[in-house]
């Protein structure tokens, strides 16, 4: 859906999406890294389970909700990636304890 422009010379950062290594760039938000990676990053909604991807990328729509380093319901579009970050695609409601 998206690809990186060749002029992007930022250093790589490795994150893990559902345990699989994904190459991101320093300064990417989690949502941008997911959309650039080509992995199926569709979450499913808490109400009907419908698949969703980020819609606004600016912190207002909450369609980018994702589990980051064990904490659920994080807004992926507001959190920058960090080396070794563990991202889980959130299916349905946030689980208790996450």
């Amino acid at each position, binding site marked *: 859906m998206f690809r990186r*422009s060749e002029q992007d010379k930022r250093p790589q950062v490795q994150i893990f999406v559902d345990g699989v290594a994904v190459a991101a760039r320093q300064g990417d938000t989690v949502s941008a*890294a997911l959309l650039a990676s080509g992995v199926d990053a569709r979450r499913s909604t808490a109400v009907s389970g419908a698949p969703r991807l980020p819609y606004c990328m600016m912190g207002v729509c909450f369609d980018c909700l994702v589990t980051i380093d064990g904490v659920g319901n994080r807004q992926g579009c507001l959190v*920058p990636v960090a080396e070794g970050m563990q991202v889980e695609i959130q299916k349905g409601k946030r689980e208790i304890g996450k």
Partner: protein
Amino acid sequence: MTVAPKREDYDVVVIGAGPAGLAAASTSADAGLSTLLLDENVGPGGQVFRAISSTPVTDRNQLGADYWVGADLVQSLRASNAEVIQRATVWSLDRNLEIAVSIGGASAFVKAKRVILATGALERPFPIPGWTLPGVMTAGAAQTMLKSSALVPDGRTVIAGQGPLLWLLAAQILRLGGRIDRILDTTERGNYFAALPHAFAFLTSPYFTKGLSMMREVKAKVQVVSGVTELAASGDGQLASVSYVAGGKRETIPADLLLLHQGVVPNVNLAMAAGVEHRWDDLQLCWSPVLDASGMSSVTGIAIAGDGAGIGGANAAVVRGRIAARAAVEALAPAAAAKLAPMAALRTELAKAERGRVFLDTLFRPSPQFRIPSGDTIVCRCEEVTAKDVLESVAIGATGPNQLKAYRRTGMGPCQGRLCGLTVTELMAQARGKTPQEIGYYRLRAPVKPITLAELAAVPKTEDDVKAVVRG
């Protein structure tokens, strides 16, 4: 790295580091007022100057001269004594000017003598059939990715809607080598005639020549369909096609990405939760705060600057930020106000920046069918409530957006009405034969962004706080 505010009290707290907030914070700090700037994003710039200090897009022509203006504003801020905290989410502001802010998972409280809200705008909801499908995003979302991560659309891409941002985004995508298959222009034909009386002011505004050359640049490379009167996205769990009607003819085209845009509206949540009075703006079709000439709201001590004060664009936002900061300086340190630009000069500058706005507002006023959906089209994305659901609730007695919460939970999901509020107001107004002003809006309350109970529970408590809730 997360840093809590250094003090508990400030002369001025500015919320939002877009054009208005950057200008306000540096003006206030330069005049010697203790100033705190809180911003939710990773770096300063807001949406217009998104990633201004970190963008990987190094060819300056690609993002355009208007973008790089932001670098000067950030430089002025850095040269000032303002304390700046990024990734700081303000979740409460009250009439006593007490602010609760979440930073790195912990909340801090600060008190201000003056608050300048510069929370900007968000894109108007675009509730068409299929707008919740993966692969449908806002144009602003694509622009955010382009600016902050140099990402461009790669698959079959359709851009639909209207307004200056749509053309700017299209030009930027093309300059970075991205793909656009078709642009579907939804500008209503009648709007051209309605806007004509306001054309002179626009012709003399700086936006005119820039806008025209950008449209020419895009139209040379992309097929543009104008007069689009219907629009729908479809696919099974993922966008597969976009169908539209133009000139009475329906067409369906395959698509991987649909970018929607029909203008921006003030981001009202924090201001409304603080009790600031808002009125329905019948031209801009949104809620705008009631403000005096210095941006002061109905709540003493709270001023609003930038697009949150009513849409005016980035240039106007900068001047509004300076005006609000100057008013704060006049009130708190009158002697220091003498060295700032005189208020009269700022107001002249603002009038110049706002020139042509009525023309744009009239020309790009979105059509009713793209604002007020029907049938199974989702209105509230969080709670997945359709237009039909809303109308059925009206039929059995829901009188306005607040009653509708009890019927359908609209606006009660995590986005707190940001993506459905305007639609619900207009839909209910139409169904009940009332004006949006009469129908009203959701009653917004803190926390205006979700925070965890654990974070609330960890908030520092005084002995009196504990006594107030403990038995015995």
